[in-house]
C-alpha cells in the first residue's frame, strides 16, 4: 500500500496505463505545469500542452480517439467545458449511434470540479448531472484517491467517451492552485478520508456503474457522489448520536447509474435523501427519485443540493453548497426527530 493524494492517485494510474498503452496521450492547457511528472516521464509528444482553445482541442480529441489514439483531454475546470460543449454534446456522444455501433470514441475528458474555496459560480460548478443527461457519455465522480485511480484505469479501457471529474477540495494541487495560493490564512473544510488514503501498489480497474456502501444504516439511505459522500458520512455519524441510523451510498459514477443498488437500499430503509453538490433542478437528485419510483418501491424522499448560482462570498457559498449541518437538519425533518 502507498499513501497518496487524489490527483496523485489519478496521475499514478494514468502513468501505469501509459507505460503499457502507447496510444494514450495527455492533451490540455498547461499540462507541462499541472502534469509535469507525466511530461518528464513520457515526453512532450505524449503530454502535449495546448492553447486556450477548448472547442478545438476537445473536438480534436474526439476524432483522435476515433482514429486510434486514447486521448486524455484536460479542460482544467469543468466550467470551461461550456466552451467545448459541442464536441461532447453533438459529436463524442453521437458517433457510436450514428455509425450503427461500428465506430467508437475512446476519449477521456478530465476536469476539476466543485466548490468550497471561494472562487464563485463560474469556477466552482459540478455539472455532472448536466453532462450525464447526454446519452453516450459516461460520467465519473470519485470520492477517494483509491477509487480515483481504479476508475481512471477503467476510463482508459472504456470504448466510449468518459468525463472524469476530480473535486478540487479533495485534490491538494488543485486546491493549492485555486484556493490556498501558499497562504496559511485560509481554511477549507477538506474531508480527510477523501483527500489522502492508502492506495494499491498496482492499480486495478474499478467497474463503472457499481456504487459502494460507505456506511450501513437502517432508517434512511443517503445517496451522493464526490465530496457530498464525505459530508453524508459525517452527517450519519452525528445522526447516530441521535439514534438515527443512516446508510451512505457512494455512486462513484453518475452515468452509468447503479440503480439496482440504490433501489435495494431504499427498499430496505424506506427513505432516500440525495446529497448533490450539483444543481437541484432537472438533475441527478430528480433522476434518483425517478428510478426508485419506477421500480415501484414505496419511499419518502428529500434532497440537499445546490439550488442557485454559487455566490462568491464564503459565508454565502457555505449556505449554498450542501453541508453536513444541512444534511443533518434535513434527515431529522424527514424523520420528525
Amino acid at each position: 500500500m502507498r499513501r497518496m493524494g487524489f490527483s496523485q492517485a489519478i496521475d499514478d494510474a494514468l502513468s501505469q496505463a501509459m507505460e503499457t498503452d502507447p496510444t494514450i496521450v495527455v492533451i490540455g492547457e498547461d499540462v507541462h505545469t499541472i502534469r509535469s511528472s507525466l511530461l518528464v516521464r513520457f515526453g512532450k509528444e505524449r503530454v502535449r500542452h495546448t492553447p486556450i482553445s477548448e472547442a478545438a482541442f476537445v473536438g480534436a480529441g474526439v476524432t483522435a480517439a476515433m482514429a486510434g489514439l486514447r486521448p486524455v483531454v484536460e479542460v482544467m475546470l469543468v466550467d470551461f467545458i461550456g466552451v467545448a460543449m459541442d464536441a461532447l454534446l453533438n459529436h463524442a456522444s453521437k458517433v457510436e449511434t450514428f455509425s450503427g455501433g461500428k465506430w467508437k470514441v475512446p476519449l477521456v475528458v478530465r476536469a476539476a470540479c466543485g466548490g468550497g474555496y471561494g472562487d464563485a459560480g463560474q469556477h466552482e460548478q459540478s455539472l455532472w448531472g448536466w453532462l450525464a443527461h447526454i446519452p453516450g457519455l459516461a460520467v465519473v465522480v470519485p470520492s477517494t484517491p483509491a477509487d480515483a485511480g481504479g476508475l481512471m484505469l477503467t476510463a482508459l479501457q472504456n470504448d466510449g467517451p468518459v468525463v472524469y471529474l476530480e473535486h478540487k477540495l479533495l485534490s491538494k494541487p488543485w486546491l493549492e492552485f485555486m484556493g490556498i495560493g501558499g497562504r496559511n490564512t485560509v481554511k477549507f473544510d477538506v474531508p480527510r478520508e477523501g483527500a489522502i488514503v492508502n492506495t494499491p501498489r498496482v492499480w486495478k480497474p474499478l467497474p463503472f456503474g457499481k456504487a459502494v456502501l460507505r456506511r450501513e444504516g437502517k432508517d434512511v439511505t443517503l445517496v451522493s457522489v464526490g465530496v457530498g459522500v464525505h459530508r453524508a458520512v459525517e452527517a450519519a455519524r452525528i445522526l447516530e448520536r441521535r439514534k438515527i441510523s443512516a446508510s451512505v451510498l457512494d455512486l462513484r459514477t453518475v452515468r452509468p447509474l447503479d440503480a439496482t443498488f440504490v433501489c435495494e437500499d431504499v427498499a430496505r430503509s424506506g427513505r432516500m435523501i440525495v446529497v448533490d453538490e450539483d444543481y437541484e433542478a432537472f438533475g441527478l437528485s430528480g433522476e434518483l427519485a425517478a428510478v426508485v419510483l419506477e421500480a415501484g418501491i414505496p419511499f419518502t424522499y428529500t434532497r440537499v443540493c445546490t439550488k442557485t448560482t454559487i455566490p462568491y462570498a464564503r459565508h454565502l457559498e457555505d449556505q449554498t453548497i450542501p453541508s453536513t449541518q444541512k444534511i443533518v437538519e434535513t434527515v431529522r425533518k424527514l424523520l420528525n426527530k
Partner: protein
Amino acid sequence: MQALAQPDVWLLYRLMLRSRLFEEAVAELWRQGKISGEMHLGIGEEAIAAGIVQQLRDGDALALDHRGTPPMVVRGIDLDLLLREFLGRADGLCSGMGGHMHLFSREHLTASSGIVGASAPAAVGFALAAQHLRPRTVAVAFFGEGAMNQGALLESLNLAAAWKLPLLFVCKDSQLAITTDSSSVTGGNIIDRARGFALVAEEIDGRDVVSVWHSAHKALNRARSGMGPSFLLAQCVHPEGHFLDDPLLQFVRRPGRALRQRVPPLVRSAIARGAPSLRARLSSIKAVTDLIAGARKQTFKRDDPVHRTRQELIKEHKLRLQQVEKEEEKKMTEVVRRATVHVS
C-alpha cells in the same frame, strides 16, 4: 487646422497610481485571507487601462476579462463598492455575489467574465446595442493574448468587421497564457490575424501610457464616427504572474518551497523504469526549467508603467507629483479602512 489632441498625463498618472494602490491593498487583504479564491491582478496593465478607459464617456461599454480591476478603477467605479465586493460584503458592488472575476456595473455598461475570450463576443453585443441605441458611443473589449486562440474571440473579430461595429479590441500581450509560453501554441502572429479580418490594427507599447492614449484616441474616434472596429496589441508585463502565488513565479520568489514541493515527483518520474530514453526525459525536464526561466522575464522594474510615467513627471514638477501621490495614498488608506472596519 484643429490642434492635435493631447493627453493629460498628470490625470493618467493619478489613475494608474490609484489602480496600483488599490491592487496592492487587494493583494495584502488576499494574503491575510480576507479575500478568497484566486486573485488575478492587473498590475503591469495600468497604462493600457488608463490610456484607453480614461477616454470613455457616458454610454460607452466595457467588456472585461478576469483581470478587470484596473479598467473598473479608471472608469470611476466607486472604490468603496469595489473593495467591499472583493471582501464578499453584502454592501459591495455586486452584493458580494461576484468577486474580483465577475464584476458588473450596469450604469457603466461594464461586464466581466472569468472565461477566457468571453469579453470579445460581449463587446460585440454592446457595440451592436450602441449602433442601434446610442449614436457615437463605443464598446471596448479587454483580453489577454492567450484568448487570441479562442474560437469565439476570432468569430467576434469577424462579426465586428462585417457589421462595422463601433468597437475597440484591446489585446494585452504578456506572452504567457497562464503558464504557457504563448508563442509555443500560436500560429502566425496576432497583428496579422486582426488585419486578416480587415480590422485597423496597431501594435503599441502597453507600458507607455502616452502612446496607448494616442493610439486609443484615433481608434475611438474612428469607432465613434462609424468607421468600424480597431484592434490594439499592447505589450505588457505581469510581475505577479497569472495570479497571486503563480506556480512559475514560486521558483523565483520562494525557491525553497517550490523545490521541496515540485522537484521530488519530477525526479521520481525521471528515474522511473521503462521508455522513453533518459535523453528524451532530460529534454522534457529542460522544457519545464525553460518555462521557469521564462517566468523571470515577468519581474519588472524598467517595464513598470507607473514607474515609467513617474520618472517623466518627477522631472516636470516634483512637488506636484508628491502632492498627487500623497492624495492618492491617503484616499486608498481611507478606502481600506472603511471596507475592513467590520471585518475581523
